[in-house]
């Protein structure tokens, strides 16, 4: 009961918070976001990039965050182009006070270079984030394709598994895998006996589909007041049972659930296995370092 009440309280206070910021943003023009939103999005983007670089597995794709960030980047590019072309025109026109005009263009040059540096920093983060996701996807392509195809109805806004990859990434993965298997067929697979040609073969002792290594060591910092993964361990035990009795896909299922119970307090830094903290990272209680 206590848990429910505190959840309800947190929900209500969060609605009050968002309502007040909603009122604030409506007092400005519709086009500008409020200052805290830009700052929060910047932090979220940085956190997403750090987590994706440090995790051995593919994390969910933050669709709305990426949309907001990309729209802001486009707006900034437009603003920089305006500034650059405006400066070019201003220099052609005659400037009344020589010294004042010089300082003005110098300042304008400085502002332009600052904006360009900031833009290239953000573009670096976004590019590195996407490249890291691409590298992880191509490394375990058949595994992720199998995850996507397990969702029965291909509902594009279905949250659980399609949320891990954006639509563009799904398309990329399918094309990549098609090209690769065609290449393999042409080069050597056609020479194999007919029963051994499948790239997603799961029969036999060792599966052809290799999931990502969920036992890799990662460094996490605890951000919530107190965190424990008891329920993740229970869910991991259930998944293991289902995996053993189900399709026998031991490699993907058995390694995924949490196996060791951990508890952390706020501010602690631990070196743990990825599968034990995966739930915490996805919920935002822990941070990858």
């Amino acid at each position, binding site marked *: 009961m206590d848990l429910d009440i505190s959840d309800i309280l*947190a929900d209500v206070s969060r609605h009050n918070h968002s309502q007040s910021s909603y009122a604030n943003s409506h007092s400005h023009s519709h086009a500008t976001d409020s200052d805290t939103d830009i700052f929060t999005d910047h932090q979220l983007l940085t956190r997403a990039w750090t987590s994706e670089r440090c995790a051995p597995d593919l994390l969910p794709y933050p669709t709305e965050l990426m949309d907001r960030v990309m729209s802001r980047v486009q707006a900034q590019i437009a603003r920089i182009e305006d500034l650059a072309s405006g400066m070019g025109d201003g220099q052609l026109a005659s400037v009344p006070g020589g010294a004042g005009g010089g300082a003005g263009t110098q300042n304008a040059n400085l502002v332009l270079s600052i904006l360009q*540096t900031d833009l290239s920093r953000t573009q670096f983060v976004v590019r590195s984030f996407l490249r890291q996701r691409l590298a992880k996807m191509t490394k375990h392509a058949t595994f992720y394709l199998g995850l996507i195809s397990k969702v029965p109805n291909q509902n594009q806004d279905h949250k659980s598994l399609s949320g891990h990859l954006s639509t563009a990434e799904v398309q990329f993965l399918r094309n990549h895998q098609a090209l690769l298997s065609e290449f393999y067929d042409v080069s050597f697979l056609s020479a194999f006996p007919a029963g051994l040609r499948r790239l997603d073969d799961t029969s036999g002792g060792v599966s052809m589909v290799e999931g990502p290594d969920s036992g890799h*060591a990662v*460094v996490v910092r605890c951000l919530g007041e107190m965190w424990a993964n008891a329920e993740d361990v229970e869910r991991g035990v259930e998944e293991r049972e289902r995996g053993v009795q189900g399709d026998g896909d031991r490699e993907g299922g058995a390694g995924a659930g949490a196996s060791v119970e951990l508890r952390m307090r706020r501010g602690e830094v631990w070196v743990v296995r990825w599968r034990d903290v995966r739930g915490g990272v996805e919920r935002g209680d822990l941070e990858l370092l």
Partner: protein
Amino acid sequence: MALPLPPGLTPSEVGFLCEMELVTVIPRQRLEGLELLGGPTQSLNPPFPAPLPLWLALLLKRQKRANISPPPWLSVEGLSSILDFETDNRTAEVFSPAPSLPRPTGFGLPHDEYLSQDSLEFSPPFLADSSTTRSQPNALPYHWLELGHLLLTHASDDFDDPDTVRRLLRDLREVRMSKLRKGFRVLDAGAGVKMNGVGGMEIAEVRGFVGGVVDGLRKINRSREESRKDREAEERENGLGGSSYQDDEDDMQL
């Protein structure tokens, strides 16, 4: 390969992250507030100090338009007290504590999406006042090594005594790295290892080694773990400790 690096931030990426930290800048020229992609910056009116991200501060410093005032912990007194704490025999197992984190906002709910705006907790490099002039003078923030190095390289004239600060930073780094190395002895394949107060660059330095050790230990212990898992699965299937021995004669073919 799209990105051929192993999982984990490289030291240059940790330095990139560090450049997002805010530092206090004393401007020498006027500059209006800018709308950057990381949020708006304050307008610069000399001689009033203003907080700016480190990359912007270094850019302005390079063009001699501003001075950077070093944070209180990056001074001779601050570093000496931290070094005394580290070299004290009684604290041989722990690092000097990081600056105390503010209370968590606690807005995260179980059904929140990954990376939703409402449930974000602040963390370095976005902790308020970790390297401005209002930071704690007796605690090393997360990016202390990179920050100290960058400020000493590009803004050494803003320090009272850059050589002593450099020497203290080097000593501090050596003491902490030796403590980290001592901690390798307790590395285990399964459980976690606690490293409170460690810095970003230090993690980047040992990440490769620690990851390799844990993976190696995992490989060695894998046979032991698998037999333990099989035993647990058997116990669960057979309920109250019955054996899995099936007597064929019990099958009645009628």
